[in-house]
């Protein structure tokens, strides 16, 4: 059985400017342990889909099942890494940010600290735990966010363009680290991006979205390449070209 199952999911926003159908008839099954990249042009409804899976927003049509049970709201089984880094707690140190979920569950101080240290090391920030978010770079903050989500040991990770605001070099480094962490932990990941190369480097499957209104899945491209991915290999280039073709049609409106 799929870990997450979206069945004919739709979302209509109704606001000042009238109703806007952001997502229409979106169906997708995510298997345990896969790394699924959702790729699409800006405004096609990627964040809307992720917010519904996270439980921040309710779908207006269809249903979302987690382990067979409908998603009713946010929960500790789905860790979220946000696009911006204002989701970190400025008044806590990096280490306390990572241990925040453990504190919610009433874990003792020593145990919390040991676990947080473990995940601080995992994201390559050993020795930086005493710093506050205002003393960390953008890339470091995203690492802390990832560590915070992982430390809580969720069933799956939801990541909304986590590296979107970083420079190309930092992004490549973090992609490598995320890929390594995923290989170690085998967490199911739903990863949103509009960067084709990023999707090809990370995903086991790439879902390309059709432009809104009524954004939906247009095609799913499996990526059967070994990790770590060799970005200059012919096989990688082939996948890149396939996905690029699908996206290219989207950008230039050839539906």
């Amino acid at each position, binding site marked *: 059985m799929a870990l997450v199952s979206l069945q004919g999911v739709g979302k209509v926003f109704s606001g000042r400017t009238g109703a806007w159908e952001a997502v229409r008839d979106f169906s997708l099954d995510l298997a345990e342990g896969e790394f699924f990249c959702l790729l699409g042009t800006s405004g096609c409804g990627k964040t809307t889909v992720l917010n519904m899976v996270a439980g921040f927003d309710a779908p207006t049509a269809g249903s979302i099942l987690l382990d067979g049970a409908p998603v009713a709201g*946010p929960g500790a089984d*789905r*860790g979220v890494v946000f696009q911006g880094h204002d989701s970190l707690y*400025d*008044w806590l140190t990096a280490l306390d940010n990572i241990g*925040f979920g453990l504190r919610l569950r009433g874990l003792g101080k020593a145990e919390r600290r040991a676990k947080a240290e473990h995940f601080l090391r995992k994201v390559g920030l050993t020795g930086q735990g005493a710093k506050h978010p205002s003393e960390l770079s953008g890339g470091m903050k995203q690492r802390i966010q990832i560590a915070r*989500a992982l430390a809580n040991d969720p069933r799956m990770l939801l990541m909304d363009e986590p590296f979107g605001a970083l420079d190309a070099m930092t992004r490549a480094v973090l992609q490598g680290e995320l890929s390594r962490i995923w290989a170690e932990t085998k967490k199911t990941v739903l990863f949103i991006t509009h960067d084709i190369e990023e999707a090809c480097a990370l995903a086991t499957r790439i879902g390309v979205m059709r432009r809104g209104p009524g954004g939906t899945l247009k095609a799913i491209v499996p990526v059967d390449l070994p990790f770590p991915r060799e970005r200059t290999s012919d096989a990688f280039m082939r996948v890149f070209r396939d996905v690029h073709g699908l996206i290219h049609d989207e950008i230039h409106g050839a539906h």
Partner: protein
Amino acid sequence: MALFMMRFTVRTERLTTIGGYIAGFALLFLIWHLAATYLVKSTLFPPPLPVLERGWMLIEDGILQEQIIASLKRIAQGFLLGSAIGIPIGLAIGSFKPVRWLLEPWTEFFRFIPAVAMITVSVIWFGIGEESKVFLIAYTTIFVVIISTAAGVGAVGRDKIRAAQCLGANRWQVFGLVALPATVPYILTGMRLAMSNAFVTIVAAELIASNDGLGKMLWDARLFMQIEDIFVALVALGMLGFATDRSFRFLIRAFAGRFNATV
């Protein structure tokens, strides 16, 4: 070495600030001196030296301290009372819509009635004892603190709350561990504003109805035309206000400095 350098720059920065304050005050007194001796040349505007001499005399007689302590005690009591009432109300207004609908008309109404306008009522209600002054200071504190606290709760980032929710936080944990600490800088800023209101209010209240305090000192000095005493009281007020505000800013920095770079 790096740590030493950092300490060093922080130290020198602090020294420069203090040096700047001293120079600023020296300039103020110099201009005052020049204006009084060469420009105005009136007994109604004494130069700083006789004022400081008179101030020293009053300190030696123990009179000035008495007035300062009387005023400060009232400010402290009313300010703490007002903050203790204002913070929870502000948190409730910011957190719960129905509370907002219910209480916002109150705060919007009373905040346009200045404490000075309430002096008459408070004297009728509480007499000229301590209660009326503490009431006025509390009154002037409450609304500023409420408004600033409520605004702080409203300004907590959506992602901060969502992050806590998907880490497993319940409503109360979101409130206590996210909304509340994120609001602390706003609360402190509101209290700092309220403190400067409190200084305005205490003088007005003591001018009109009191047996001691800096306001009373001003009033008596006017009655007996002790021009130097008036200036002693004014200088004392300015210095006290300055010292209180600086300590408050220091506290905000110490507690909340790393919360938010803009505080």
